[in-house]
């Protein structure tokens, strides 16, 4: 079936199986920044923005996003022109193995769009769905704090 949506600010039209997961469709289209950690909603490595809100793309069936906007890490910035959040994560060592980083940055992006001056508690809550097996949680908070001070 055909699904039409906005992907990283461009209109796309994709032919999907109704049971395809959004995460697989995005990765099959070259968006490898969308990571699969657990596949059951626990880890947040697959987080993308659906109409501006972070969601676990491993739990979303692709046809659901018809008519919606989807943003992946590739839509936030590039190696040549990183987004300030991406630069802050790199500068503060908030990237270790890097696997959970795209999801964490997208959750941060959604947080700061809604609340430009979050408290530490707001930050912790916004990132509560992005697990980091390297346990680099404090550096993420420091990186985000550097953007709001």
């Amino acid at each position, binding site marked *: 079936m055909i699904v039409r949506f906005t992907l990283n600010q461009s209109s796309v039209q994709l032919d999907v199986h109704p049971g395809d997961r959004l995460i697989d469709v995005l990765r099959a289209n070259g968006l490898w920044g969308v990571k699969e950690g657990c596949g059951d909603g626990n880890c947040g490595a697959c987080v993308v923005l659906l109409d501006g809100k972070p*969601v676990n793309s491993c739990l979303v069936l692709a046809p659901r996003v018809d008519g919606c906007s989807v943003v992946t890490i590739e839509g936030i910035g590039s190696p040549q022109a990183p987004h300030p959040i991406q630069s802050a994560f790199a500068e503060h060592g908030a990237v270790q193995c890097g696997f959970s980083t795209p999801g964490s940055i997208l959750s941060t992006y959604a947080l700061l769009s809604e609340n430009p001056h979050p408290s530490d508690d707001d930050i912790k809550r916004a990132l509560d769905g992005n697990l980091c097996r390297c346990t680099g949680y404090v550096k993420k908070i420091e990186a985000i704090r550097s953007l709001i001070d």
Partner: protein
Amino acid sequence: MAQLIPGLKEYARPQSIDEALGFLSRGDVEMKLYAGATSLAFSRPAVERVIDLTRLPLSHIEKTKEFLEIGALTSIRDLERHPLVQSFCGGILRQACDRLASTPLRNLITAGGNLLGGFPWSDLPVALLTLDAELRIASTDGHSERSMAPKGAVRRNDMIQPSEILTGIRLPADRAGYRGAFIKFSRTTVDFGIVTAAVSFGIDSGNRISDPRIACGCVTSEAMRIPQIEDLLSGQVASDELFESAGRAAAGVITPRADTRAPEDYRREMLGVTLTRALAAAWKGGRA
């Protein structure tokens, strides 16, 4: 590419309740309704048609003289932040949403899906049990209302039939000013609960408890009210000692389940502790 539901042939995206009921009433193939669809990866139903309810205009939260009504498709994240729920019965709904899964999941999970999912760890139904919630149901026969838990426990078959759609959850306004609290005891902020407890009650001029509702979740396979504790509290003067004795008594009337998170004895002990804390929090919160 591996599919989540390999046999799925059709993904329906109705725009209206009538259109959704139309799909349901066809009865031609196995089908299932989905709201947040966060239970789908877990249950992987062998269906040929999925009916996606996310486009139905059911994400409202409204207050009338008699009710606070929560649209079935309201996300947990929108519910917890809505101005109308902040002070409703001591903020009990906000507290129930507060540690319900993680932020990205709270954006997907809906109030209706959390209630109907039928999981022992569901948080919202425990709070709703103490608010005398009524369900608004749509079927091809029209719209109707029914009590959420006629037997005092959260059971899917009492709430909904396969031919029906839940459109909203109504909370009678008479409990809006009652004291209330929900407490979740879990290993991390995003884990399933080991025990959850919710309480709501009125207070008369002599600080006597009136019309109490006491409920727990995660303890057995279904969220339930504890009528013995409601009887014990009714008409008594609120005090820390009373709340402690209520907690101890609750631990004596319920046989908890054991799972990987906690053995039976630990759950029993923590049920008492969590209930005592919820009663104290409701009492103190109401006073502030």
